[in-house]
């Protein structure tokens, strides 16, 4: 692998250098506009390489293309943050359920039919006016798929993974959430098999809402802890 230029360079320069070298390393033509883009850079031929492997594995009888369709469909339509939102709405509406959820997240989530891969050991963290919980995986991208779906890019990215533990207040500010000094922030680094879900605070003015209406207010970001749930009037922009 080629090395960046000799001499002291800072990390930003190093990252830029790595990005600039990437097209050569991958043997592909990199589009200029990608270099000015904040997203991680993907060699142009990755789509072709994935397609080639898929057709090879189909021809070899190793995969069934209809099964691939079903997996994609499951993660696009069934396994997503609407599931977690139902858990939160139930907890807001039913205090006995809320107690069970906080005592044994795995069992309480299973009551609503959610569980399986990456939710084997669920712990639910309750936000209060004095305690705000934030979930991260600094080592990889551990995330409770059955209740939140696959993690968004920012959750898996170097900026979030690196800074959530050392500067949670700065990270939350970047998400537009400024918490007072009197609020305690607890960051949960998912370093083992436990997967965390934040139970956000129920917004004011929602006493008359049904469980379905409450669920509609709950966002993925609030269940990771980078946002609060907004009252109905302000929702819709989030």
């Amino acid at each position, binding site marked *: 692998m080629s090395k960046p230029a000799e001499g002291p360079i800072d990390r930003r320069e190093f990252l830029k250098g790595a990005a600039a070298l990437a097209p050569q390393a991958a043997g592909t033509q990199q589009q200029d506009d990608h270099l000015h883009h904040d997203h991680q850079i993907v060699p142009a031929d990755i789509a072709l390489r994935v397609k080639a492997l898929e057709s090879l594995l189909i021809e070899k009888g190793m995969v069934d293309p209809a099964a691939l369709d079903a997996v994609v469909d499951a*993660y696009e339509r069934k396994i997503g943050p609407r599931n977690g939102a139902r858990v939160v709405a139930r907890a807001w509406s039913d205090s006995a359920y809320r107690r069970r959820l906080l005592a044994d997240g795995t069992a309480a989530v299973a009551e609503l039919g959610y569980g399986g891969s990456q939710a084997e050991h669920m712990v639910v963290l309750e936000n209060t006016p004095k305690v705000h919980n934030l979930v991260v995986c600094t080592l990889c991208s551990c995330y409770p798929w059955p209740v939140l779906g696959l993690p968004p890019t920012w959750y898996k990215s170097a900026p979030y993974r690196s800074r959530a533990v050392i500067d949670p207040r700065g990270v939350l500010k970047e998400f537009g959430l400024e918490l007072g000094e009197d609020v305690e922030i607890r960051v949960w680094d998912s370093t083992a098999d436990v997967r965390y879900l934040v139970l956000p605070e129920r917004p004011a003015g929602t006493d008359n809402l049904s469980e379905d209406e409450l669920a509609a207010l709950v966002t993925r970001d609030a269940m990771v802890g980078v946002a609060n749930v907004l009252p109905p009037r302000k929702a819709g922009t989030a």
Partner: protein
Amino acid sequence: MNGIHDMGGMQDMGPIDYDPHEPVFHETWEGRAWALMRTTGGFGPARRRNFRYELEILPPADYLRMSYYERFFKTLVDRLLSGNAITQTELDSGHPDAGSPRATPPVTPAVVDAQLARRGSLRRDDVHVKPRFKIGQHVRARNMNPVGHTRLPRYVRARRGTIVRDHGVFNLQDTNADGYTLGPKPQHVYTVRFSARELWGDHVSVRDSVCADLWEDYLEHA
């Protein structure tokens, strides 16, 4: 391994790139690569390296440059090749070698839901291991720098914390330098709370803390 993946506490990685309308898969290939990952578990080498370790040994510049799905796709291809499930010639040509055996797909649409719902826990409810630590006890994360895979992040090593939960007995995930498990070594996993000041110094909020889930082998009495 003190690799680039162990990012907790690093700075200068830039702003968080937030897209409020992000789709589950940005492009078709991401979904297909993900689906291939989830349906080819039955193929590959009989003796498996830790899959996270396979991602962690990517050269640091590549690790930072590649997207999540690209990293997974690379490890999938490497796994299929090293297990002789496919050959390099097949990968290059996109077609099966002449005379290569034809398999029957193990994952059909009918079993996808069951496959995705399958629990993959390392918890060992079958063994009884006495915990060394109790909730409320002060502990110190060991100062160790293993060359294989470990789940003890650098930023907590040699720091003092308090046990706040005991999650029961789990197999240790740590590996040797080749990525193979050091053995199941069932032991308790605890949530350990570290004050932000213990980790980062006096300029951070006295109220804040970071909790990490740590295997007993990572901890000593403080």
